């Protein structure tokens, strides 16, 4: 089920209306049923996978506490089962294709059947969420839950089931164990967040997608058109993914839950590391805690740190998709972080210097680097990627410059609300708690909501698409 559909609206209203009539255990049972209905709406067999993951992880984490002498074995069972699901559904086709290609290069023509399975939506998200719980239990950071219902609803909590944020037991699971109350002020904010998410998706992301797809449809894209297309993708992917998070967080708030923050204005980043502190924060934190730090983190020699960074980001790239472009994209980010660390030592005046000019320069450099990365992310054909990276800004027809310039101008116009939001954050929104319930706060929120509502109804793109991160 997708958030921007009437089906979801009806589904959510029914769930919401029932939910607040029930006692806590009843609420959990309802949320569990709702989670499976939501997940299996198009392909009911997806639910088998979700249920199996839940049962396996719940059973083995309990065994970790009941039979702690074999703790490591139980953890391995969980990790193997979870990553086997990912390997089978997400990476099997990719690896067999590459294996066949490799064998052919070596002169062996082995008839290995390539099986491409339909990737269940959100499998990477809930698998990671479930794994983090198991590792946390293993590390003693949280305890193995005794209630299957609580755990099952934590894994299948529908607002964040398909595209995150990737939650931790210490944040979300404990909320299931505490009583919840409905609060009108929070509900108002939640509805506003949902509306803002819908505008970001239907107005900004879906419009940007049209122009991005146009630019990437060309077989002979020139420098201005290719890079204007990349900029469109930059706007699309941020508006699209952050919209999903906003709608997820808003829906969860209406049910009395607070999901973790996933974005913090990544366009304002002033270094690659800063970007990853602002972009898909729940995934960055997951890789930091469960891959980078276990590898050694920032301890040891620079070479070792560089290895850790490269490995972490290569895996992060592969998490996004079974394709070489994602691996290259991950490698690009690993390399950028390594180089920026080196720059930090050689040119601290640039990387750490104060002053608006330097900050602007750092921002500009980071923005360009991020967009080069988006080209690798978006372009799935390796020859086309190479061609696009090699396009020259010289000897380009004037019409192509005008078209590129038109695309960029359009993106500036459509992304204006995102920029306004980013710059309002500090002076206005950070202190929102203190004046949300004042008359001025209500009037401002109301005016903004009506403006967003008008924008949604009049500027929504005719063409809509699935959220980009559904495919991961």
């Amino acid at each position, binding site marked *: 089920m997708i958030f921007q559909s009437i089906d979801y609206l009806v589904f959510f209203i029914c769930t919401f209306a029932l939910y607040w009539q029930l006692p806590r255990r009843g609420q959990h049972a309802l949320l569990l049923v709702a989670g499976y209905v939501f997940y299996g709406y198009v392909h009911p067999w997806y639910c088998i996978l979700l249920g199996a993951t839940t049962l396996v992880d719940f059973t083995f984490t309990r065994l970790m506490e009941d039979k702690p002498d074999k703790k490591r074995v139980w953890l391995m069972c969980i990790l193997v089962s979870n990553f086997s699901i990912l390997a089978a559904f997400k990476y099997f086709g990719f690896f067999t294709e590459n294996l066949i290609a490799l064998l052919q290069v070596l002169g062996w023509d082995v008839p290995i059947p390539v099986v491409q399975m339909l990737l269940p939506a959100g499998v990477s998200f809930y698998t990671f969420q479930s794994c983090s719980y198991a590792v946390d239990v293993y590390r003693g950071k949280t305890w193995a839950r005794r209630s299957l219902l609580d755990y099952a609803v934590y894994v299948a909590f529908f607002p964040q089931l398909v595209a995150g944020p990737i939650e931790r037991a210490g944040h979300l699971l404990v909320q299931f164990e505490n009583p919840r109350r409905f609060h009108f002020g929070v509900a108002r904010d939640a509805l*506003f967040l949902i509306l803002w998410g819908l505008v970001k998706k239907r107005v900004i992301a879906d419009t940007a997608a049209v122009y991005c797809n146009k630019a990437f449809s060309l077989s002979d894209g020139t420098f201005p058109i290719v890079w204007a297309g990349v900029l469109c993708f930059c706007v699309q992917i941020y508006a699209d993914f952050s919209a999903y998070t*906003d709608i997820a967080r808003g829906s969860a708030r209406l049910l009395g839950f607070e999901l973790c923050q996933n974005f913090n204005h990544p366009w304002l980043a002033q270094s690659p590391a800063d970007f990853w502190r602002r972009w898909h924060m729940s995934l960055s934190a997951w890789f930091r805690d469960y891959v980078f730090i276990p590898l050694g983190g920032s301890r040891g020699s620079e070479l070792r740190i560089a290895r850790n960074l490269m490995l972490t980001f290569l895996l992060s790239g592969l998490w996004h998709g079974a394709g070489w472009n994602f691996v290259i994209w991950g490698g690009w980010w690993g390399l950028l972080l390594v180089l920026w660390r080196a720059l930090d030592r050689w040119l601290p005046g640039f990387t750490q210097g104060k002053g608006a000019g330097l900050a602007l320069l750092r921002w500009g450099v980071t923005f360009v680097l991020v967009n080069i990365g988006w080209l690798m992310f978006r372009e799935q054909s390796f020859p086309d990627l190479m061609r696009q990276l090699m396009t020259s800004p010289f000897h380009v027809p004037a019409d192509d410059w005008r078209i590129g310039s*038109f695309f960029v*101008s359009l993106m500036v116009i459509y992304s204006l609300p995102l920029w306004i939001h980013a710059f309002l954050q500090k002076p206005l929104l950070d202190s929102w708690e203190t004046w949300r319930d004042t008359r001025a706060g209500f009037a401002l929120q*109301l005016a903004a909501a009506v403006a967003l*509502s008008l924008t949604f109804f009049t500027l929504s793109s005719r063409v809509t698409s699935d959220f980009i991160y559904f495919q991961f």
Partner: protein
Amino acid sequence: MKTQTPSISEPSPSTGSRWKRDAFRLLIACLLCLLVPPLVLQGDPDVPNETEGDERIGAGESIKVSKVIADLRAAQPDYVGIGNSMLYTRLGKSPDQMSALSGRKFSLISRGGSNVTVWYLVLKNLVVASGIRPEAVFLFVRDDELTAPYFAKNEATAAAYLRSLRSADEPVLDKFMGINNDASSAASQADQWLTQVYSFDEWQEYLSRRLMGVAMEMGGFGTPLKAQRFALSARFGLDHLRGNLAADENAAPALGQISGGFQQTLEASLLPDMLRLSAECGAKLVVFRVKRRPDAKTHLPNEPSAMPAYADFLKKWLEARGGLFFDETYDTSIRLSDYLDLDHIRPERMEWYQQYFWERMKGVLP
């Protein structure tokens, strides 16, 4: 306003007057968000000349039915052509040249971006309603767009145009478009009401075009908008697209989705009624399949593998019912160099095309 995270433990239970105040505020906010758009955006945007001379049906554009009917009555044409830009970029917007070339009276009713739903209403509510008795009514179509429901439903832009052409009751059209006018159930009534209140197609089209115009002015370095639109259209033409996309773009969209066979597709389309309407005004219905933009080497367009069989079936089906079908797709004398953008013929080749058309049709048309 987007807020910082309120923690779960933070909100104290609202009680008494505060609870009422918060509930009231939430109610007001929801009501205003839902009610303001339909109240503020009543009617269509006031842009009668916005799309004057433009290629496609514009936002809020309508057709002056009485004027067209009066023109048809005054002209009393022998042949009436109906279509979209495929028609006017080949035979012209004015019928004068075709009339001069053939010595017969032509009327051409064309509008860029129009589709089979518009053509059906033009035939029914303009040609037949005018009472004229032409010898033939011909339709200019590409591939299977005459019978493809996908093509008909996908054109939200023409909503106002369609409304201006509709009579109060259009059961055949509504059935074809999948509109459920069964108002018996509460759900369908609610659905119709919601669609009516929250349908802002014209505003969407108008505002998105305005924003496109602003962006073109910002990025166009003083180049006129029309020239920019033209360049844009040409740059994203089929010959610039990646191979697989060009094939997709050029494919008849619904042909691959036919499950019940061609017979069922044709019977479920508007074509049987269009044949009946033509016969009602004493005219033969002639379907003219134009050649889509061809490949530079083969001089033939890409088409789905099922298309030749479909065209063959359509020809037999039409001829068995008194209609005619003419297909220029495989005529290699029409070259890529004759095309301007997409499937449109260059203005400087229009005269040649008019002669080509008349040469082929004069022996076929009654």
